[in-house]
C-alpha cells in the first residue's frame, strides 16, 4: 500500500520526520518497505516533508489499506486528532434508482446513487495523488471512486446508467450459462456461485471483483449509477479465484471491508464530484441494508494482558489506546482480584477483532514489543529423550559419513520420467495436482533418482569419485509416505595415491556400506537374488532381507546393486560409468534391528583362538552364504568366525567351478582348545561340504 504523507496530513498531524514516521509504523506492525520521494502535488499544501511510504499491510488489517486506516494508527502513536474529510449532505428526494438485493447473504448491504456528470480529466492534484498511490488516473468519474477507495478504504464502482436495461440494479447470483465481458475486455463465463450486479436483463458487473465493459463509464456518459456496497468476503474470494481475476476491490472485499462505510464513502464521492466540478447527485442515496449488524463487544481483563505478555501495562493505557484506534471502551465492575476490566465495542472496520486476545495484541503493539522483558519459561516437566527415529537418523549419518559418503538433500518431487522406472505401475506414483512445472510433477517413489541427478551434477563438474547418500521420505500410492536412505557410488573406491593402489568402486563397496549400516542398527542382513527389478543390473544386484526382531518373519529391507545403465544414461550420464546404489527402508531396519544403545558388552576372550584356512573347489553358481551356512551347521560352537578370504576361478580349476577359501577361527570361552579338537571339527566340515555340495579340498 502506497501512502502519500501529505495526503495523510489531511487527516492527522504528522509532526515527526518521514523517516521517524516510517520507523514508527514498522514498529507497530506496518512494515514500511520503501520510502520514495513524493511527486509534486499541485494545489495541495504538503505541510512539511513529503514522501510516498510503501507499506506492507498484513492480511488481518484490511482497514489499513487506505489513508484513513494509517491515520488512525498515527493518531494512536502520536496522539494527534483525526480530521475526517468532508462529505456531501445526504441528498433528499426519492430513491435515485431501483435497487433490489436478491441474495442478502452474499450482499448484506448495497448503497447506490445517481449523478449527472460531465466526463473529463480530473484536476491535477487528484491525478497526482492517485499516481503517487500507484493508481492510473482515467477520468474524473472513475478517479473519484478510486480516490475514495484510497482515502477511506471502501471500493466503489460507477455504471453508465443509460446502459443499464430498465435503469435498475439487481444483486443476484449469476445464472447458468450467463457471461459478462469485464472491464479488461475478457468475456467471462459465470456460474451460480458467483454474485453479480445485473440490470433488468443481464450481469453488468462481477460483484466486488470487476465491472462490466458494457456499462463502462465513457467520455459520452451523462448519468452514472454509483455503487458502494458490502459483499461477503468468502464469496468474493471464491469468485476472484475461480475467474483468476484479482483487483483492488476484490483484494479489499475478500479481506473484509467496513460494513458501515458504504454510505459515508458514497457521500465523500459526491462531495468530491461537486468539488472538482464533475457533476451532482440526482435523487437520494439508496441504502439497502435490511438486517443491520450489531457491533461486537469483547471483554478485556487487565490481568489477562499481563498473563499473556509477561509485562505490566498501566491500566490507564488500555482504554486510551483502544479509543484512539476507534474502539468504544466502557469500564466494567472491577474483578474480584481488584483488576480492571472493560467492555470494548468493536468498530466494524476492525474485522480482525472478535475476542480478547485480539485486543491484547492491540495493547502489545502500541505498548511496544521493545518494552517486553526477556524471561524464561519454567521447566515443569522433564524433557523427553530424543525420539528413536531421530537417534537412528543421526547414527545412520555418522556411519555413512564415516563410510566416505557425503549427504545430499534432493527435491521431494521429481519428473515423472525419472520416477517411472522405480514403480511397477504408473498409478503407483503420487502426482501433484498443481505442479510448478514438469520437473516437479510427482512425489519421489525412491531416493535414487534424486541422488542420481546429484551424482550427475558432480560428474559434469570434473568429479569422478563420488559417494553420496540421502535420508528422506518416499511416496507411493500403495505404501504411502515412508522413510528410507539411499547411497549412490561411482568412480574409485580407493582414491589414487602416489604409493599406488587405486581401485574402482564395485558392488561390494555398496554391500560393505549396507553391512556397516546394518551392524550399527543391530540387523543381520541376508543378500538374496532380487525380485524382478528393472532399475538394477540383473547379475549385479541383491535384495537385502533380515528377520524381524519380535515376530520371526522375513523383513524386506531394500536393494543394493548396480544401477541399470539405461536409467543413468537417460539422465545424461556417460555410458561407461558404473553406478552402484542401495536403498533401504528405515522402518524395516528398526523392525529387524536391536537397539544397540541398550546392549551389554561381551566379555573379552580369555583363551587363545586357533585359526584354520580351508579352500574348497565348488560349483561356481553356489552362493558363498550357502557354503558358509553348511560350515556353521556342522561346526562345534567353538567356531566363532567364518570369513571368505579368497575366491579363484581359472587355470587349474574346472570351468564351471571355483575355489572358495575360508578362514575359520575357533575359540572356547572356558579353556584353551587343542589341535585335536579343531582338527576333528575341520574334518567334519570338509566331509559335510563334500556330501552336501560335492566340494573338493584344493
Amino acid at each position: 500500500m502506497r501512502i502519500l504523507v501529505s495526503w495523510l496530513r489531511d487527516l492527522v498531524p504528522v509532526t515527526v520526520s518521514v523517516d521517524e514516521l516510517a520507523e514508527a509504523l514498522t514498529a507497530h506492525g506496518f512494515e514500511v518497505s520503501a520510502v520514495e520521494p513524493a511527486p509534486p502535488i499541485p494545489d495541495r499544501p504538503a505541510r512539511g516533508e513529503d514522501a510516498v511510504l510503501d507499506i506492507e499491510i498484513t492480511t488481518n488489517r484490511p482497514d489499513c489499506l487506505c489513508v484513513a486506516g494509517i491515520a488512525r494508527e498515527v493518531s494512536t502513536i502520536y496522539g494527534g486528532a483525526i480530521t475526517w474529510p468532508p462529505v456531501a449532505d445526504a441528498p433528499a428526494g426519492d430513491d435515485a434508482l431501483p435497487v433490489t438485493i436478491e441474495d442478502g447473504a452474499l450482499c448484506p448491504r448495497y448503497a447506490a446513487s445517481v449523478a449527472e456528470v460531465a466526463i473529463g480529466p480530473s484536476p491535477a492534484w487528484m491525478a497526482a495523488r492517485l499516481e503517487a498511490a500507484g493508481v492510473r488516473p482515467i477520468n474524473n468519474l472513475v478517479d473519484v471512486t478510486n480516490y475514495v477507495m484510497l482515502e477511506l478504504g471502501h471500493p466503489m464502482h460507477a455504471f453508465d446508467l443509460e446502459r443499464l436495461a430498465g435503469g435498475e440494479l439487481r444483486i443476484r447470483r449469476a445464472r447458468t450459462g450467463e457471461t459478462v465481458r469485464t472491464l479488461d475486455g475478457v468475456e467471462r463465463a459465470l456460474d451460480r456461485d458467483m454474485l453479480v450486479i445485473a440490470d433488468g436483463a443481464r450481469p453488468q458487473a462481477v460483484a466486488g471483483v470487476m465491472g462490466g465493459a458494457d456499462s463502462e463509464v465513457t467520455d459520452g456518459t451523462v448519468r452514472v449509477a454509483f455503487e458502494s456496497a458490502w459483499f461477503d468476503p468468502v464469496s468474493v474470494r471464491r469468485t476472484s479465484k475461480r475467474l483468476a481475476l484479482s483487483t483492488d476491490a476484490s483484494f479489499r472485499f475478500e479481506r473484509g471491508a467496513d460494513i458501515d462505510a458504504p454510505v459515508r464513502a458514497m457521500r465523500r464521492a459526491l462531495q468530491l464530484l461537486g468539488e472538482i466540478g464533475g457533476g451532482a447527485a440526482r435523487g437520494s442515496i439508496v441504502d439497502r441494508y435490511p438486517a443491520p449488524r450489531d457491533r461486537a463487544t469483547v471483554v478485556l481483563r487487565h490481568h489477562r494482558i499481563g498473563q499473556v505478555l509477561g509485562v505490566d501495562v498501566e491500566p490507564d493505557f488500555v482504554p486510551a489506546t483502544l479509543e484512539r484506534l476507534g474502539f468504544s471502551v466502557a469500564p466494567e465492575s472491577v474483578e474480584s482480584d481488584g483488576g480492571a476490566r472493560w467492555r470494548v465495542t468493536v468498530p466494524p472496520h476492525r474485522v480482525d477483532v472478535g475476542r480478547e486476545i485480539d485486543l491484547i495484541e492491540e495493547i502489545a503493539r502500541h505498548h511496544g514489543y521493545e518494552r517486553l522483558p526477556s524471561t524464561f519459561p519454567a521447566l515443569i516437566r522433564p524433557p523427553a529423550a530424543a525420539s528413536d527415529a531421530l537417534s537412528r537418523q543421526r547414527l545412520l549419518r555418522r556411519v555413512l559419513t564415516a563410510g566416505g559418503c557425503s549427504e545430499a538433500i534432493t527435491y521431494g518431487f521429481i519428473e515423472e520420467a525419472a520416477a517411472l522406472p522405480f514403480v511397477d505401475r504408473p498409478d503407483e506414483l503420487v502426482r501433484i495436482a498443481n505442479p510448478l512445472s514438469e520437473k516437479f510433477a510427482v512425489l519421489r517413489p525412491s531416493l535414487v533418482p534424486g541422488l542420481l541427478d546429484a551424482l550427475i551434477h558432480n560428474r559434469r563438474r570434473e568429479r569422478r569419485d563420488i559417494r553420496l547418500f540421502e535420508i528422506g521420505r518416499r511416496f507411493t500410492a500403495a505404501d504411502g509416505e515412508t522413510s528410507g536412505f539411499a547411497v549412490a557410488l561411482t568412480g574409485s573406491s580407493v582414491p589414487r595415491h602416489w604409493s599406488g593402489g587405486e581401485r574402482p568402486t564395485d558392488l561390494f563397496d555398496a554391500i560393505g556400506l549396507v553391512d556397516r549400516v546394518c551392524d550399527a542398527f543391530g540387523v543381520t542382513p541376508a543378500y538374496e537374488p532380487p525380485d524382478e527389478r528393472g532399475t538394477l543390473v540383473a547379475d549385479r544386484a541383491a535384495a537385502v532381507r533380515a528377520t524381524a526382531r519380535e515376530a520371526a518373519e522375513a523383513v524386506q529391507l531394500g536393494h543394493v546393486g548396480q544401477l541399470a545403465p539405461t536409467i543413468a544414461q537417460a539422465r545424461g550420464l556417460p555410458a561407461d560409468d558404473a553406478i552402484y546404489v542401495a536403498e533401504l527402508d528405515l522402518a524395516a531396519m528398526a523392525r529387524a534391528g536391536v537397539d544397540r544403545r541398550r546392549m551389554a558388552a561381551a566379555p573379552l576372550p580369555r583363551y587363545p583362538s586357533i585359526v584354520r584356512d580351508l579352500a574348497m573347489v565348488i560349483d561356481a553358481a553356489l552362493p558363498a552364504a550357502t557354503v558358509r551356512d553348511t560350515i556353521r551347521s556342522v561346526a562345534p560352537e567353538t567356531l566363532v568366525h567364518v570369513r571368505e578370504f579368497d575366491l579363484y576361478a581359472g587355470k587349474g580349476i574346472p570351468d564351471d567351478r571355483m575355489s572358495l577359501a575360508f578362514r575359520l577361527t575357533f575359540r572356547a570361552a572356558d579353556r584353551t582348545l587343542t589341535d585335536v579338537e579343531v582338527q576333528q571339527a575341520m574334518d567334519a566340515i570338509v566331509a559335510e561340504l563334500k556330501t552336501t555340495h560335492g566340494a573338493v579340498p584344493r
Partner: protein
Amino acid sequence: MSALPAVDDLRATFRAELEGITTPDQLQELRNRYLGRKRGVVTALLKSVSQAPPETRRDLGRQANTLKQEIERALAERREEVARTPAPTDSQAKGAETVGKTIGYGADPVTLSPTVRAELSVRTPVDVTLPGREVPLGHRHPLTVIREEIEQIFTGLGFEILEGPEVEDDYHNFEALNMPPEHPARDMQDTLYLDAPLRARGARPGTLLRTHTSGMQIRYMETHEPPVRIVAPGLVYRRDTPDLTHSPMFQQVEGLLVGEGVTMADLKGTLETFLRQLFEPDTQVMFRPSFFPYTEPSAEVFISCVFCSGDGCAVCKRTGWLEILGSGMVHPAVLEAVGYDSERLTGWAFGVGIDRIAILKYRVEDIRAFYDNDLRLLEQFPY
C-alpha cells in the same frame, strides 16, 4: 655374609665388558643388557629375589641392590670418560650420525641402540612432505549441520524433538491452525496439492504437501497432555518458483511451548538465547509486530545483520537488521482446536527457515545451491 656366586660372577663379567667400551652407544647397549627394564640381567636378578628361599632372600636382595648401584656408578663414570675422548672418526660412527641427522632425532644419537640404528640405517629415507593417504570421510549437508545445531540448542533448553509427515491433510496444515477454508492468509503459503489423497497414518488422508511443520504442533497436542515443549524440524513445500531466495522445498524448524503462565516475554528470552547461541553471543535481537493466523500477538524477529554487524549493507538493505523468524503467542483458537483450555493455558510458537539461516551463516548467495548437492560446496562444511 658371604658373597653369593651369581652376584660375583655378574660383577666380574660386567667389569670385563666395561673395559672394552669406547663409544656412547656401546655404553648404552651395555647398560641395557645389565639394567634394561625388560632384558637387563641385574633387573632379572632383582626380580628373582622374591622367589628365593626365605633363608637367602634377604642377602640376595641386599647384594643384588649393591651390584645395581655399583654398575650405575661405573656406567656414569665411564660415560664422562667417553664424552671427554675425541669424537670417533667418520667411518666409525657413520651409521649413528647419518641416522641421527636423517631421522632428525636431534644432536644426541647416543640414545639409539645399535639394534635400532641397524634397523633404521638400511631404510630408504622417507619424504614426509608427500601427501598422506586420504581417509574417506563424507560430509554432512550444510542444512543438516544447521539443523542439528538448532536441535542441540533446543535439546539443551529442554525441548523434545519430533518429526511429522510431509504429506499432510488440510485440517492439520490449515484448519486447526485457525485458517479455515477461504481464509485469505492461505495465500501467504501457496500450496501444492496431491492429485489423489494419499493413504494416511491417521484418520484423514493426506491431500497436500505441508507448507510448514506447524501441523506437527496439532498432531502432538492432540495426543499429549500439556505442558508441551517440542521442536519439529523437517522439509516443507511451497508453490514458489525457484530463484535466489526461494525454493519450492526448504527446511523449517517449528517450536512450540504450552503451559500455565507462559508469556510473550518468555518467548523473547528463549529466542534471544537461541539466536545468540546460533549466531554470535553479542547478536542483537529485535521483535516486531506481525501477523500469522495461528499466533496472536505475532512477532517477526530480526537479528543485527551478520554481514555488517548492524552498520547497514546491501544484504540488510541498509537497515542493519535481518529478518530471521516468525513467532507469537499460540492463538487460543489453536489451543481450543486440540481440546486444550485456552483460559488456563498459554503458549508460544515460532518457525524458522533452516535454509535462510544457512544462507546467512555461510554466506551462500543462492538457496538453490543447497539442492544441487555440489561436492565442491558440501566438502567445505565440517563433517
